[in-house]
């Protein structure tokens, strides 16, 4: 039963006993166990990634009214292995004039920025890599490594389309970081902590989606932009700049970028579940044990990954200037207004029963005001254009 309620500590203690029994010092044994755990954890993430490729291809096929991979194994589940073999036996090309070291480092950094996030994902209480007290800042910091990898790939390829893709990505990622940080700050204000475990604990009664529905929407939009998925896939806009920053990459190096993107989407699905949907909780089912909680968390993450795919394959790409205007003139101000409203209402009604309804209603009010403002703004611009184009009547 001990294993069922705290599996990680139980495994750790038994391994420690085994290793010290072999004559190893306790520190060396701890370091060795940590190294093995990290290796297993990363392997789990990468194996999951293989199946994410299959999920992605199946789901996109369904959205486009196709069957998707269906030849290899039941429902084509072994298709990704064939993909991997194909990627591995492709010729590995480094373009002339490329900066070899940076060209090869970029895909590693891209994958690294995703795997770093897995250190703070709390699958269940006591099933978390590190319970950092600044986990939410860590999320943003890992994102900036991703930005760095894109700019490295774009510049080192010595290709103008790659550079253009890198420019677009960096502009987009730096811009959309701001509403994302503001949305995370709303959650931090509500939970009173920046630690991932603390945020999940704060949602014991009611998940934060009821406290801050608009914030959840802003986080979803800016997460999609951070991921560079459609409608924000300007960085690899196939019809405009070949494939953006990874134009020159072949074989498994391209595979790392692609796998990194998929795993990143899944991880952000996990973060949406963690920040707004109570993490591993599902109507008391999580009380059965941490393993059940972890399965619930993974299922939630897959569900929000599916939402991100749903958006990706439904909405067409937007233009660069629209992307920037949407962020700076709409998303960022709205996120800051929501932050101020949440802080104010949360402070006034602290520990009161009316906190959740008041926050929910204030969110709806802010959303309604935004729609009204957008409508009046649109009418004004339309009238100004009509006045300009209409012939001047002379008396």
């Amino acid at each position, binding site marked *: 039963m001990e294993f069922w309620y705290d599996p990680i500590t139980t495994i750790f203690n038994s391994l420690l006993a085994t290793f010290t029994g072999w004559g190893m010092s306790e520190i060396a044994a701890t370091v060795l166990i940590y190294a093995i755990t990290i290796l297993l954890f990363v392997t789990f993430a990468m194996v999951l990634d293989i199946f994410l490729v299959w999920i992605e291809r199946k789901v996109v096929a369904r959205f486009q009214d196709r069957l998707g991979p269906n030849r290899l194994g039941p429902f084509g589940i072994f298709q990704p292995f064939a993909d991997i073999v194909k990627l591995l036996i492709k010729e590995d090309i480094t373009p002339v004039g490329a900066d070899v070291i940076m060209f090869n480092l970029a895909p590693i950094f891209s994958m690294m920025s995703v795997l770093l996030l897995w250190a703070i994902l709390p699958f269940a209480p006591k099933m978390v890599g590190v319970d950092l007290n600044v986990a939410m800042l860590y999320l943003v910091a890992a994102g900036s490594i991703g930005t760095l990898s894109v700019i490295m790939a774009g510049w080192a390829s010595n290709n103008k389309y790659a550079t253009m893709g890198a420019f677009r990505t960096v502009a987009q990622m*730096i811009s959309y970081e701001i509403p994302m940080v503001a949305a995370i700050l709303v959650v931090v204000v509500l939970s009173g902590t920046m630690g991932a475990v603390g945020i999940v604990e704060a949602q014991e009664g009611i998940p934060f989606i009821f406290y801050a529905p608009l914030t959840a929407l802003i986080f979803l939009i800016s997460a999609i932009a951070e991921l560079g998925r459609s409608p924000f896939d300007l960085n690899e806009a196939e019809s405009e700049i070949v494939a953006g920053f990874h134009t020159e990459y072949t074989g498994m190096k391209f595979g790392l970028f692609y796998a990194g993107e998929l795993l990143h989407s899944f991880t952000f699905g996990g973060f949406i579940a963690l920040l707004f949907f109570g993490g591993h909780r599902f109507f008391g089912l999580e009380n059965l044990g941490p393993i059940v909680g972890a399965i619930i968390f993974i299922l939630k993450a897959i569900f929000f990954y599916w939402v991100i795919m749903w958006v990706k394959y439904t909405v067409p790409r937007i233009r660069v200037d629209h992307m920037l205007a949407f962020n700076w003139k709409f998303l960022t101000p709205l996120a800051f207004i929501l932050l101020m409203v949440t802080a104010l209402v949360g402070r006034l009604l602290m520990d009161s029963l009316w906190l959740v309804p008041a926050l929910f209603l204030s969110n709806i009010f802010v959303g309604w005001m935004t729609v009204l403002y957008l409508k009046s703004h649109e009418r004004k611009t339309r009238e100004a254009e009509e006045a300009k184009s209409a012939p001047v009547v002379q008396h």
Partner: protein
Amino acid sequence: MTTMQVLFLFFAAIILGSAIKVVTTKKMIHAAFWLVVALFGIAALYAMLNAGFLAMVQIVVYVGAIAILFIFAVMLTRKELLDKGAALNNNKTIAALISLVFFGGLLLLLTNWSGFTKMAPDLPEGDMVAKLGEALVTPNAYLLPFEVASVLLLAALIGAVYVANEARSE
């Protein structure tokens, strides 16, 4: 030597080595990336000092924003992406003199400093981030510097908007 000392020496070597590479490497972009390495090393030092918040802010602000702005500036202002141009001017003697004076001043300050032999005070119990947040809004602590820094940033923001608007109206 304790593990912490070994780690400190490791990160200090990384910081110093990459800082030297920043000023000696010929390619501009490489210099910017070496700067990123140095900034990561400084973040690691912060993390070793139990200042996790500062370490993360260091990466977010310096690596995520400022270093990328540097790279942008280099990429946008140079015609050739693989730029290997010569230095703009040759003031090696003056530079050496200034850095020697700085080094001497720092050496003088540090030899007179008594903090080397003292042990670091124990950290107070509780959430460090919460304590930092409280210190930033307490009038007796760091409220004034915090507000002054915010006003400075706001002024820079307004200035940037003004300059950008002027460029468009022409």
